[in-house]
């Protein structure tokens, strides 16, 4: 069973966001990494990019599958986790901590309210 942790928010596209003030740290969920399995390439949006919640802003490739990265929240990309770009297997090992992908400076605080809680996300993946 995929791990869903309490203190962060989720999207229907299997991304997560940890809100710290006006900054959101994002990544893909444990469920997503397990569905993709061996992740071998990740292309997050570039620092400085203005992104809109729900848009495809990057890609993530596993041995057998490719998936878009969707922005959980609108804002500006202020930092990218180069460690996961260099060694994407970190995302498989620790999707919620070491495996974070990029940070957003939030421009639309209302987007945060639209994210799913851990319980809502648990329900979502239980249906899969």
């Amino acid at each position, binding site marked *: 069973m995929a791990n869903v942790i309490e203190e962060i928010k989720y999207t229907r596209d299997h991304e997560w966001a940890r809100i710290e003030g006006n900054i959101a740290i994002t990544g893909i969920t444990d469920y997503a990494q397990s569905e993709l*399995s*061996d992740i*071998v*390439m990740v292309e997050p949006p570039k620092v400085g990019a203005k992104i809109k919640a729900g848009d495809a802003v990057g*890609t993530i*490739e*596993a*041995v*057998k599958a*490719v998936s878009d990265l969707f922005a959980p929240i609108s804002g500006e990309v202020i930092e990218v986790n180069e460690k996961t770009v260099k060694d994407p297997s970190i995302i*498989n090992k620790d999707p919620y901590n070491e495996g974070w992908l990029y940070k957003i400076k939030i421009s639309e605080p209302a987007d945060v309210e639209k994210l799913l809680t851990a319980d809502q996300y648990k329900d979502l993946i239980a249906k899969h």
Partner: protein
Amino acid sequence: MAKKTPFYKMHLKYNGKIVEFANFLMPIQFEGIIAEHETVRMGVGVFDVSHMGEIEITGPDRIQFTDYITTNDVFKLALNQVQYSAMLYPDAGIVDDLLVYNLKNRIFLVVNAANTEKDFFWIVQNKKYNVEIKNRSDEIGQLAVQGPKSELLMQKIVDFNLADIKYYWATETKIKGINVLLSRTGYTGEDGFEIYMDAKDGLKIWNIVFDAGKDYGIKPIGLGARDTLRFEMRYCLYGNDIDKTTNSLEAGLGWIVKFDKGDFIGREALLKIKETGLKRKLVAFETTRKGIPRPHQKIFNNIQEIGFVTSGTFSPSLKKGIGMGYVGLSFSEPGTKLKVMAKEPIDVEIIKGPFYKKGTHK
């Protein structure tokens, strides 16, 4: 309802991720495709390949008949020799690729899981001479023990010298008293064996093999790594790289077509293709910068669309994207630089030979 192989219980026991494939519940992976891939390249791994189809041809004319329905020369096979071959439609499209075993009193065909029913039908429809044809797929289990350490492992459980069995040879023997058909064959590029047994004996054989393999770090391997392993060797996969719309010559399978042997289904059409000249060829390519090609993506040169990807994946051994696909003949030379149309174009270069060149198969 999807079928279960004799080893289904073991896939659950080893926490395999189960998917439906060719109407069977099969493990796509256990610990992960890359780790499993490396187990087979470096050590030894075991695949449940019981989903593969087994069709048996008996009767006095079995060799003549098999020769008529396949492209390779069955008369060349000695007793217990194995041959890679293909069956064609009259228009030279490929029905399936398969292994032909010439055994005592029978020919044993091993066909792709998704094609078993279709192939059996096709063979029965084209029956001639004095032969009997049986689909034995449901009664037979199959394990593939593959990797550089597979001979060490297998030597512990058979009572003859395995060095006597060369690549693409078989023997009908016993493993700890259980009847099996054992061949030095595989789909990985590594040294390895395939074991066919009565489905009811499957679990016993599994346990014997895993007991003997403990010292060698034996692990179960899923279909995901089976695909990356075959792909690195540039082996064709039916349904991806070859099918009824492709012919053996453009697919690079001319080496298993023996025009001189006499008549076989598809010969006339294929000969005409050979005389007219090929329009396209199946090529293998590596990415030169980044990206991973995926099936169905279009291939361009600098100007125009010239082909499409049939197989594409990340190569765990080469640590980069690799692909196969059909391209126009004039673009098929090794060294040719092309672009695969993903979300962003992927730079690729056509290569010669297999992607992985250090395979231990003998």
